[in-house]
């Protein structure tokens, strides 16, 4: 186990390095002076000179990258142009809403998508299968912001069940927080569940044809037990894999939904940074999300042990 984890961590080193090099080069790929780009449009020549000095822009590219990367390894992602605060601090301040939102989304997705996928596989080609599949295509096709506005219109403006926009901090009460992220989480769930439901269905269709499913049925287990205990356990690996792969979709959903519902999370941070042309923040959040993506996928790989005892690391 330990050996596997360390080898996987080692394997992700080149990926992290690649992401870092790419994000670093982004500011150099753009036409013009990187210092002017990073300083923003309203910078004075002194500020630009200061940034040039701080980023060691007069030295060779490799040296510059060395300085920049060693800063990142010490969790120093530079300072925001707009607020002049460290990017790591900005990300940390915005972490809570995004974390709450994504966790709730993942929980909701699992509770909605897995049973739907199981039922669709159980009754392949039936009306319920067809309707679940059509709903899932809709999830791929309707943009998150439209679902978000539709939800907001119905559940917040017309029915008044949830607040229209904004986020209530956890420290002010868990219930208020849940109410404030309920609609955004439901919105991303409607986008995300399609992927999970489809994989669950595909995996379950194959599993239901296996010998051990027949055995389970033959020994007189109830259909519910066959489906949700014996069969579903075997679908654990593909389902957790797709959740790992889907984190990228989840992140784009979070970026969009946080803007729709005005939630001060990391997604909003990126969007605001882009409109303000706050380049260090954009670079910092890209690195942050990429590392999250890599770590989540590592955790997903480790979770295989839980579902399939044949897998030993």
């Amino acid at each position: 186990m330990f050996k596997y984890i360390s080898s996987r961590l080692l394997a992700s080193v080149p990926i992290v390095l690649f992401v870092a090099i790419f994000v670093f080069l982004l500011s150099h790929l753009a036409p013009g002076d990187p210092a002017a780009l990073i300083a923003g449009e309203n910078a004075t020549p002194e500020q630009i000179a200061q940034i040039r000095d701080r980023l060691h822009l007069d030295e060779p590219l490799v040296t510059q990258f060395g300085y920049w990367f060693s800063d990142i390894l010490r969790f120093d992602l530079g300072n925001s142009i707009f607020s002049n605060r460290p990017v790591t601090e900005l990300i940390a301040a915005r972490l809570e809403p995004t974390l709450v939102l994504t966790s709730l989304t993942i929980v909701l997705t699992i509770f909605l998508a897995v049973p739907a996928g199981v039922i669709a596989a159980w009754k392949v080609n039936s009306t319920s299968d067809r309707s679940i599949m059509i709903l899932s295509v809709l999830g791929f096709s309707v943009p998150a912001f439209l679902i978000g506005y539709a939800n907001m219109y119905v559940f917040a403006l017309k029915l008044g069940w949830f607040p229209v926009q904004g986020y209530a901090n956890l420290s002010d009460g868990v219930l208020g927080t849940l109410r404030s992220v309920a609609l955004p989480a439901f919105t991303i769930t409607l986008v995300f569940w399609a992927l999970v439901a489809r994989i669950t269905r595909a995996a379950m269709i194959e599993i239901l044809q296996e010998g051990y499913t027949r055995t389970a049925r033959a020994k007189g287990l109830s259909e519910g037990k066959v489906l949700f205990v014996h069969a579903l356990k075997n679908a654990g690996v593909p389902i957790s894999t797709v959740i790992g792969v889907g984190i990228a979709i989840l992140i784009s959903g979070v970026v969009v939904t946080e803007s729709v519902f005005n939630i001060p999370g990391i997604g909003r941070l990126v969007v605001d940074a882009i409109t303000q042309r706050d380049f260090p923040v954009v670079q910092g959040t890209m690195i942050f999300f990429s590392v999250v993506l890599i770590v989540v996928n590592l955790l997903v790989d480790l979770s295989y042990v839980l579902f399939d005892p044949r897998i030993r690391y």
Partner: protein
Amino acid sequence: MNTSQTVPRQHVQRSRMVDFRRFLSEFTDGRVEKSAVLILIAALLISVIAPMVYHSYSDINPLDRMKPPSADHFFGTDHLGRDVFERTMVGTRNSLIIGFSVAIATTIIGCILGLVSGFISFGDKIIMRLMDGFMAIPNVLLAIALVALMGSSLLTIIIAISVPEIPRMARIVRSVVVSLKEMPFIDAAVTMGTPQWKILLRHLLPNTVGALSVQATATCASAIMTEAILSFLGAGTPPNIPSWGGIIAESRVFFQIAPWAIGFPGLMLSLLVLSVNILGDRLREVLDPRVARRRS
């Protein structure tokens, strides 16, 4: 019956005309697929005709601000009194151009990378590590950052959306090539002394067409969606070109007063992406013998 059920895929290439006709009839049998094809054709026509018919789509009319849908303005008007219907219709072109361009660019580049890395083991390591790296950056973020850097124009948006899509395409082509490489017909070609480029182009490339076209359709749908997301977030199509995401972005502040300015372009967007996705699904069913067998 489906030929692909009994005949291995590499032989399906023979007698192309007969096969294509059968493919077409099979492809458009259900009602849902027929409507999807019709919607796509309608969108193509609109994208050609609308910019010729509607010239006043960006005319500001302060007296007609945020009027609900009516006979004069089918989709109502936005906060500047512009006709949402005309803007939406004209915006179709933008979405289609981006969808198709990204699909084509991604297919060509992804195909080259996939063929090379599947066939040449030296290239494989480098290309696949690079692709892993790109896949580690969430695609919408990567696209936003690229647009923010390069400035927004039609070309930069196409590039920005294509870059994150290429790794997926390359991986799919690579996986097909890797599994085909062990097939006897490739061994036969190697034994006959066929040059490598010819094996790549004449034997491997034609067999990736199925997987490629399925992925290209999916890419087209997701590109249309990503462009709308980029425009919605303010890092997309420049405001002087009407785009669905752009119309929604401009109207979002007035959502409570004029929800139609968001709803209608959003519905058009969903309808188009839905049609492309349905066709992609159908394509997968027709081209992938494993799925076809399961359905029958």
